[in-house]
């Protein structure tokens, strides 16, 4: 087994009296999709926040590509190859799809802001950035809506843009928080195909409620209940695990 690209060791997050995430450990490997499932309120999104650096952990360690990154802010983690999509669509609504992607693609090229050279050239004249944005555009199938404002896009297309933006930063680790949220069957199928294609070359974490998608995509499954991991393993093992059946799969709605 190759070295994990992202490794969490005993991550915990306490909000006042509430222990939202309790000693969770997991690792993400290249070319692998690790799904995290569990009932609502299990702490899945909070865990994702901890992994992406959106909120600091109360205790535990985080390792990215063999380097300790505990306590790093999310912009720093992002620069080191960690990309994250959000459960609630978090794009630049007033900008067009292309502008959204350009802003994302530019991040890797960002001069320090105090470099005056960054002040005189037009942003859209940077060929490398344009190419990166273009790649993300086509990979996510958004070429037809390139110049449409994000705010007027359908929900499903917005979710695709949500992923496309992360891809434009060319991360090695992908954290995807409910990418299929609110999607109809056809849209979901397109998304699953996209995610399948992304498995190659990326280490992926998928938080999802859609069980069909989860079992189609996951190589490893972790089940969380009330902030704690109750089971972790291959999809087959999880499917037949008694604890999991009792806690979750029995009541799950795809």
């Amino acid at each position: 087994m190759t070295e994990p690209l992202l490794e969490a060791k005993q991550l915990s997050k306490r909000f006042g009296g509430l222990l939202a995430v309790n000693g969770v450990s997991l690792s993400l490997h290249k070319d692998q999709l690790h799904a995290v499932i569990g009932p609502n309120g299990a702490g899945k999104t909070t865990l994702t926040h901890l992994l992406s650096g959106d909120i600091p952990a109360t205790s535990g360690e985080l390792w990215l590509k063999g380097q300790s990154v505990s306590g790093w802010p999310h912009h720093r983690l992002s620069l080191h190859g960690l990309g994250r999509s959000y459960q609630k669509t978090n794009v630049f609504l007033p900008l067009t799809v292309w502008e959204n992607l350009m802003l994302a693609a530019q991040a890797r090229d960002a001069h320090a802001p105090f470099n005056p050279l960054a002040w005189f050239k037009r942003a859209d004249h940077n060929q490398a950035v344009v190419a990166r944005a273009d790649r993300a555009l086509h990979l996510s199938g958004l070429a037809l809506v390139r110049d449409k404002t994000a705010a007027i896009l359908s929900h499903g297309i917005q979710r695709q843009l949500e992923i496309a933006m992360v891809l434009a930063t060319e991360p090695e680790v992908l954290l995807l928080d409910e990418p299929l949220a609110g999607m109809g069957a056809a849209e979901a199928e397109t998304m699953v195909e996209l995610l399948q294609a992304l498995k190659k070359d990326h280490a992926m974490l998928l938080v999802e409620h859609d069980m069909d998608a989860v079992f189609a995509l996951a190589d490893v499954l972790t089940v969380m209940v009330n902030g704690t991991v109750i089971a972790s393993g291959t999809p087959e093992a999880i499917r037949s695990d008694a604890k999991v059946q009792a806690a979750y799969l029995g009541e799950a709605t795809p």
Partner: protein
Amino acid sequence: MSAPQAHLESLPRSVQLLMVLGLIALVAFPFAGQDFYTQMVTRMMILAIFAMSLDLLQGVTGLVSLGHAAYFGLAGYVLAFMSPADAGASWLTTLPLAMLGSGLGALVIGFFVVRTQGIYFIMVTMAFAQMMYYLFFDNKGLGGSDGMYINVRPAALGLDLENKLVLYYFTLACLCVTYQFLRRLLWSPFGRTLNGIRLNEHRTQALGYDSFSYKLTAFTLAGALAGLAGYLWAAQTGYVNPELMGFHMSAHAIMMVILGGMGNVAGALIGAFGFELFLHLFKDLPKVGDFDLGKHWQLWMGSLIVLVVIVAPQGLMGLLRPRSKDD
């Protein structure tokens, strides 16, 4: 209603035309008008530079600063300190130094202020500007409440700013350079990022941008440009006092930017000229019977501002901009 606007950088055709015509008018103006009006327009141009510097902060990056005048006044004081009592300093040295001083002041204060958000940011910018105000007000060594005089205006390279006409064209040149610089900045990667921060700071950070550094840089740059305006103001009036850093001056700047329309630099310019014109208009109102309309200009000015907020929150640019198909 409160969703942030995008594509503020694009100028409608009408405005582009207005800019060109305006430039021609400004170049030709001194030959057509009297001395008094030349000075008035010089002042408008200085305020336009001030307003544009604030637009970088407010309209582009989305940071509402109630203390921008601190950097405006600071530059004026630098000139005052560097001007000998009986001779003019060289603007070749004092102008860059004044802008550096303002920029440095903005960098130091910005370090504390930029880490705050929303309402806090508004309040602390105001507070720190007041701090500067009191620093100068309370200390005789810095001029105290009386301020300082610049007895002889700066000169260099044969351009003597004592000469009203030279000052006019010098200011016009500064105005054009500032305008072009900021317009280019809007389309640069730096400007795009500032825009992103305004629209969705959280996602901008998630993409990998260190938004704190970007905001601090914008704050510092805006401060330095405010310093350019402040230097010219001091060069024109020959006098600096703490009021130049005060709340009213900062409020003045915000109102100019809003009146014109934020986010594209041209609006700030238009707003500055418009604001000053309205001010002169109200102050020059005649007496109606016993009631001196002009004396109570604050009432009219205040009402105009309230009206603009309620009816046209996007300012004049908002009114001139064609409805996009996405509205």
